[in-house]
């Protein structure tokens, strides 16, 4: 939306939904270059991206996702703790009755663990070298249609 077109937008789009993504770094993991690149790409794709920063516990992430009413949670993890931390996030989400939020992961995840994570509610895993547009398109196509009207 162009600033100059603000008024026009108000009228033309009385309903104006943007995909809202919470990007978080769970656990003890201090490297967030990749997460920032993803934030930027999603922003440029017209999404509203909340970056919650480093060292988030699963409880904090789920809490933030609820408060922000995020449509998508993007977790970036390089520490190797994904088999423990990621299922905890999805378990907490379902305990809170949240079933319509898309959870995707980026970072260093060995291929052997992909099936395990998908069985535990992770929708997609983006490894190193994933073109940014693939991640953007995946989110656009798979975000809950009810959530974005």
């Amino acid at each position, binding site marked *: *939306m*162009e600033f100059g077109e603000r008024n026009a937008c*108000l009228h033309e789009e009385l*309903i104006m939904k943007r995909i809202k993504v919470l990007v978080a770094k769970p656990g003890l993991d201090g490297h967030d270059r990749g997460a920032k690149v993803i934030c*930027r790409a999603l*922003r440029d794709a017209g999404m*509203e991206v909340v*970056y*919650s920063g480093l060292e988030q516990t699963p409880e904090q992430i789920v809490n933030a996702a609820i408060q922000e009413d995020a449509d998508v949670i993007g977790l970036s993890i390089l520490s190797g703790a994904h088999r423990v931390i990621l299922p905890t996030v999805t378990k907490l989400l379902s305990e809170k009755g949240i079933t319509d939020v898309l959870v995707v992961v980026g970072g260093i995840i060995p291929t052997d663990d992909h099936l395990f994570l998908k069985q535990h509610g992770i929708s997609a895993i983006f490894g190193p070298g994933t073109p940014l547009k693939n991640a953007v398109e995946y989110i656009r196509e798979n975000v809950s249609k009810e959530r974005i009207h």
Partner: protein
Amino acid sequence: MDVQTLIDGLFKGDIISTTRLISIIENDFLKAEEISRRIYPHTGNAHVLGITGPPGVGKSSLVNKLALEWNKKGKNIGIIAVDPSSPYSGGALLGDRIRMREITGIKGIFIRSMATRGSLGGLARATRDAINILDASGVYDAVIVETVGAGQSEVQIMSIAKTVILVLSPGLGDEIQAMKAGTMEIADIFVVNKSDKPEALETVNDLERMLDYEGLNEKAGWQPVVVSTSSTMNTGIDELVTKIEEHQAFLAGMTSEKLHEKRAAMELIDTLITKIENEAIKKAKESPVYNELVKKIVEKKIDPYQAADIILKEYMQLSRQ
């Protein structure tokens, strides 16, 4: 879920209803009005605090410390943190939570990030309604609104917040900057953050001199104060809380209805402007001559002022019928 179920949930303090309602008022202009009207009678209990100031002075970090300090005193705090939308993609990077990690997940603290979506006054169109939602839930003693990094003229916060805090940091300019009109005039409390920096005292002095000239101006008896804080060293936060509570007590003790009426009038005017804008633009685009006029402007056969007058005249005639 339908709006009424969500509103019922809101009044019970249900967090999912609260947060979904905020999304609806952000996204859906017509439902926003319906929701706002239903909850309006339940508002007015939370103290609404506006935090504004230039980018990078430490607003979010200060909100983090302030909410933490207040929460320790048993207060429930709602926070709405506004960041700008991209004028190109319409997307946004909402980064205020990064500075608020300390209070993420603490019971009694709610944080919501919000993109401006093209609004220019330092807030989003939905900010006022979102404050009202948090207020109407009955859960929060105070709602803190953090504006986008504001320059000299983003003064929209004054029509929304009961207490306005302008956050500055050392090295932003001299006394003349402090004397300029705009955001400098609207603050009830000035905060010089990053006061661990050596130039901080000078900034405090500049501000205090500026306040000396002003004396008691439009604040109806409240003398604005200057507080030095450092979020990294965690100093001055308790003093800031005290000053906010003093201002809150000052407002509560005001017998004059004037201030409340002034705020209500601003709210009415804001709402009216939005309605007129929407209505006017809708009608303009429906006008059979609209496309023709656009073409004529391109060909320089007519100027935009004349064209606007033509549409306006047509609209006035229509509304008279």
